[in-house]
């Protein structure tokens, strides 16, 4: 286009071509330069090429204006991408008068004043200790201690309510006092993941490169190709890592291997992937052993504690289906000799609802806890087994009131619910394969449907001929 200026800008900002192009197209009507350059045949894709336009050329004045606007717009998104906002030095507080809060009767004591690290329009995470100066700008230094807000966030995420969108900003962070020889740890931007990593890094000097995995943990994000080869490469480039460290190595969590091809990362950004341990609490040991992992560091576990942590989310996700099931239970239980009876809906509905509750407990709580002890290996079988024992309890509870047939229906109902929920727990384990799950489901679903059909039929019949 108008030659030298364009080329120069593109050389100083090598990665900016696509951004520049997007802006250019949008910009055209804005600057009102009629018929200039918009009818380009090819120049749009090669902004650094000169004089490939076949349309009329704009006057130097007009182009200079375009240039200025482009330049200002172009720098904007780039600065945001490459470095956090510049942190100004705090003012000399000795010269600034500060007001002492006066004690009064108005409610509570005021919270502490805003930190000097805060900036208008940004929210400062409490885990940021300070910002350190690097060749690519200010990089946050994070603490290795979890505070109250971190622990509250963890609890909320574990309970299920705040699990989605619990994330931090991707980009480069630091821990300890890292220099150009310090290791680079790559991780996901799920806050729970980030917290579990940084709390293990006390005493370590390292860089932490946080990828944009949309707030999803390492393994799941890798499975979804969010913790991906492309994301690693682009985040390495965006962060300017090659200006920060002398070496060319990245430590990735081993479980990200599902989404990241080490040989392609090396090929496209020059950094060698070192597969770190699976668990964050092995990271320091791994580094001090000269980047060597022993077998336990490389294999997943599924301890009782790990299984217990999953139960609240399992239950949380059952809220909606459970409400639908309750509505269905009320309707089916209310069908009576006189077409529909509200009192029967409630009195018999309570029995079926108790069966549902017990089925949820035996399927989504007891199975995860007793998982390795229950015979299987199919999960639906494990759930049916715990459900059967739960069902015997429920049938015994209502036997006198409901009679033998209806109690049998309750027993079957508990068994089916439990079996189905246990089968759903496959998605939360680190060892079930999709082929295996498909095989299990081909076997389980027809049986579960048949049993559920039988339970409903018996329940209806006993209700109609009560």
């Amino acid at each position, binding site marked *: 286009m108008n030659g030298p200026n364009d080329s120069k800008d593109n050389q100083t900002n090598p990665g900016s071509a696509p951004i520049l192009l997007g802006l250019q197209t949008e910009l055209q009507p804005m600057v009102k330069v009629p018929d200039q350059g918009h009818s380009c045949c090819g120049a749009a894709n090669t902004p650094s090429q000169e004089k490939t336009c076949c349309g009329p050329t704009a006057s130097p004045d007009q182009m200079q204006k375009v240039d200025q606007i482009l330049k200002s717009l172009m720098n904007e998104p780039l600065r945001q991408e490459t470095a956090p906002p510049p942190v100004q030095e705090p003012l000399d507080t000795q010269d600034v008068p500060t007001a002492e809060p006066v004690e009064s009767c108005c409610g509570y004591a005021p919270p502490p004043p805003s930190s000097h690290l805060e900036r208008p329009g940004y929210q400062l995470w409490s885990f940021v200790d300070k910002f350190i100066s690097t060749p690519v700008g200010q990089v946050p230094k994070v603490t290795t201690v979890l505070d109250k807000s971190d622990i509250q966030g963890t609890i909320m995420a574990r309970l299920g309510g705040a699990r*989605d969108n619990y994330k931090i900003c991707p980009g480069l962070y630091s821990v300890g006092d890292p220099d150009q020889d310090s290791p680079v740890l790559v991780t996901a931007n799920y806050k729970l993941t980030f917290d579990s990593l940084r709390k293990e890094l006390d005493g370590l000097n390292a860089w932490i490169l946080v990828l944009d995995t949309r707030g*999803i*943990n390492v*393994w*799941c994000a*890798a*499975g*979804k190709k969010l913790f991906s080869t492309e994301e690693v490469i682009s985040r390495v480039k965006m962060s300017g890592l090659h200006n920060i460290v002398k070496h060319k190595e990245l430590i990735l969590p*081993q*479980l990200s*291997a*599902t*989404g*990241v*091809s*080490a*040989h392609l990362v090396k090929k496209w950004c020059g950094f060698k992937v070192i*597969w770190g341990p*699976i668990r964050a609490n092995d990271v320091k040991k791994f580094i001090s052993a000269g980047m060597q992992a022993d*077998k336990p560091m*490389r*294999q*997943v*576990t*599924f301890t009782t504690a790990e299984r217990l942590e999953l139960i609240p*989310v*399992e239950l949380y*996700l059952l809220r909606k289906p459970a409400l639908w099931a309750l509505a269905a239970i009320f309707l089916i239980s209310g069908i009576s000799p006189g077409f529909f009876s509200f009192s029967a809906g409630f009195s018999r509905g309570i029995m079926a609802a108790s069966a549902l509750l017990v089925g949820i407990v035996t399927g989504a709580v007891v199975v995860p806890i007793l*998982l*390795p002890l229950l015979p299987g*290996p*199919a*999960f639906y079988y494990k759930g049916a087994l715990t459900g059967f024992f739960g069902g015997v309890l429920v049938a015994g509870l209502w036997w006198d009131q409901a009679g033998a047939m209806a109690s049998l229906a309750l027993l079957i109902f508990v068994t089916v619910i439990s079996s189905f929920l246990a*089968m*759903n727990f*496959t*998605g*939360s*384990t*680190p*060892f*079930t*394969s*999709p*082929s*295996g*799950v*498909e*095989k*299990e*489901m081909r076997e389980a679903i027809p049986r579960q449907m048949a049993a559920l059909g039988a339970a409903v039929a018996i329940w209806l019949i006993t209700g109609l001929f009560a």
Partner: protein
Amino acid sequence: METFRYLPGTSTLVLDTAACVGCGECSLVCPHGVFLLTDGKAKIVDIDGCMECGACAVNCSVKAITVTPGVGCASYVLKTRLKGKGISTCGSAGCC
């Protein structure tokens, strides 16, 4: 993980030993110790431990490993059957 075993004989994992160059990446990334490097070649030593996560295939630079990767999640499988692939994600299913 020896304590937890799932249905045997279902894994789609296949290793082309002739194509293997013995780099050892598969045995490094596998979270279940399915591979072992012996005599400069990878070897599948525990096929029933495989959960088809696909890490080995993704990191095999000579494409000697094939596996149909996916998530072993019943509610995801159910959703894809009911709604069709692509529409459902395993995100809201609860597992991932």
